[in-house]
């Protein structure tokens, strides 16, 4: 469980994060979104106890990270934006060091290291020097490092950055498979990634929360976005007016390739009427489908509405 309450961080006069609050339960996977410089990394650094907030509190499984940092930090696995690697160590040595410093119990250490090596696909390179590994492998070592203490709270700052498409899919699957008994926070720029692995979304902009929603609800509302796409054979003059004349239509926008985006008035079902009109006027129906909104649209809307 992660409980963030009224988090504020100022660097001098610059406000990096302002009054951020959210609560995550076990099993939640939070997609933490926002444009560059929105305060994502700062928030994650505060949650992991790397830096203290100007105001506000963070509780990890009920333990305050600033009153009781040693206990809280034991339960966290953290992959920073840049994987924190000692380039002169081998993968196995490095994970052994991280396990020691995260105070993994001696008898569990070996099996934990074996587990993360296997999970992150590092078994083949375990004796290689980290400095000689490619960026993708280094990123995987970074993820392995975050998992080695079997954390109940996993915080990943852009985990799939620098990986090739195949590795991205692997890492996503890995995160999905890990989520069950943990709380996961991950920041990313790749929006479809959020739809794929997250159960909750927080979007921040200029340090302020602009949207907090569960993904179930979000995709429901995306599906219910009731605009329709209509494409007809005869799209000469007057078609737009004819569509407008259909009862319940509140707006029509012509698209670039002869299609129309038809917006009905709130809660009115217009498809039947619309088709009847098309058939009666012999316009030649080619396509009629609901327009499914994307997370991108929500993201852009959330961020731009904040600006106004």
């Amino acid at each position, binding site marked *: 469980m992660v409980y963030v309450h009224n988090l504020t961080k100022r*660097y001098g006069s610059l406000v990096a994060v302002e009054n951020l609050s959210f609560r995550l339960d076990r099993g939640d996977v939070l997609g933490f979104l926002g444009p560059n410089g929105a305060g994502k990394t700062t928030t994650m*650094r505060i949650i*992991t*106890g*790397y*830096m*203290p907030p100007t105001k506000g509190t963070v509780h990890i499984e009920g333990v305050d990270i600033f009153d009781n*940092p*040693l*206990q809280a*930090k*034991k339960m*966290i696995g*953290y992959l*920073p934006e*840049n*994987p*924190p*690697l*000692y*380039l*002169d*160590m081998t993968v196995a*040595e490095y994970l052994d*060091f*991280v396990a*020691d*410093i*995260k*105070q993994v119990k001696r008898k569990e250490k070996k099996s934990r290291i074996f587990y993360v090596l296997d999970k992150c696909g590092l078994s083949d390179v375990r004796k290689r020097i980290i400095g000689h590994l490619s960026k993708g492998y280094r990123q995987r070592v970074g993820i392995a*490092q975050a998992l080695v203490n079997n954390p109940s709270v996993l915080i990943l700052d852009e985990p799939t950055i620098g990986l090739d498409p195949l590795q991205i899919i692997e890492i996503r699957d890995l995160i999905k498979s890990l989520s069950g008994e943990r709380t996961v926070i991950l920041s990313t720029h790749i929006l479809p990634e959020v739809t794929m692995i997250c159960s909750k979304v927080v979007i921040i902009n200029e340090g302020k929360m602009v949207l907090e929603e569960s993904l179930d609800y979000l995709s429901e509302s995306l599906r219910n976005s009731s605009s329709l796409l209509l494409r007809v054979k005869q799209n000469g003059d007057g078609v737009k007016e004819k569509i407008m004349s259909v009862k319940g239509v509140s707006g029509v926008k012509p698209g670039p390739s002869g299609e129309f985006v038809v917006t009905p008035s709130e809660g009115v079902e217009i498809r039947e009427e619309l088709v009847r009109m098309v058939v009666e006027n012999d316009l030649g129906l080619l396509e009629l489908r609901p327009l499914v909104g994307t997370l991108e649209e929500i993201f852009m809307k959330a961020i731009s509405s904040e600006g106004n």
Partner: protein
Amino acid sequence: MKAFYTIVKRELRSYFASPLAYIILVVFQVISARFFFLYLQGFLQFQFDPSYQLQTGELNLNNLVVLPYFGTISIVLLLIVPLITMRLIADEKKNYTAELLFTSPVRIRTIVFGKFTASLILLILMLLLSSINIFVLMVHGNPDLGAVFSGYIGLLLLGASFLSIGIFASSLTENQLIAAVISFGVLLLLWLVGALSDAESSILGYISVINHYEDFSKGLIELKDVIYYVSLIFLGLFLTYTSLESERWR
């Protein structure tokens, strides 16, 4: 305690995984041995120089060989310690591993003390190596071992306070070279500040790192000198701690 041991182990591993530790040990040993040989040569020449014996009465192995030898070691330490400490914290910042350390269940003071201890072990190794020359002396002559012992205690304290200042310099930057230059500058200043005033009672004379060493080399272990070095060590480590802690708050 386990975290402390883990930090020390990793630092030592890092010293000896790279050529750095070996190069430092070799350079240190070569320079100090060369000077040792020089002093010994001088001593042997004086043995056959009656005018010198008339002047001082007797030939003293301690005054003519051990004392200048330790003096040389202290100067070599001044030059080499910044190289030992420069990467200790600067490198953690540069490789982003500071983020790993500070989000681990370890206290900052454990990290600082662990790093200091690792560098101290390297220093002890250097001093042990340098004592080979003294053993050579013992085989063929009869140096005052009390003075040798107190001299080494003094060198250890002197070197350890250099280390703690070096670690502080390393905590100020993520650039190793800058860290080395800062620590060398501060150490040199602390060394030379004594020369600005001869009287040991003056404040400048008291601050000087090398003034406190003189008693040790003469065979005296004085509490005030020990206290001086120990407080300098803790000052350096405390400043390191403060600098790391304040960085988080910025």
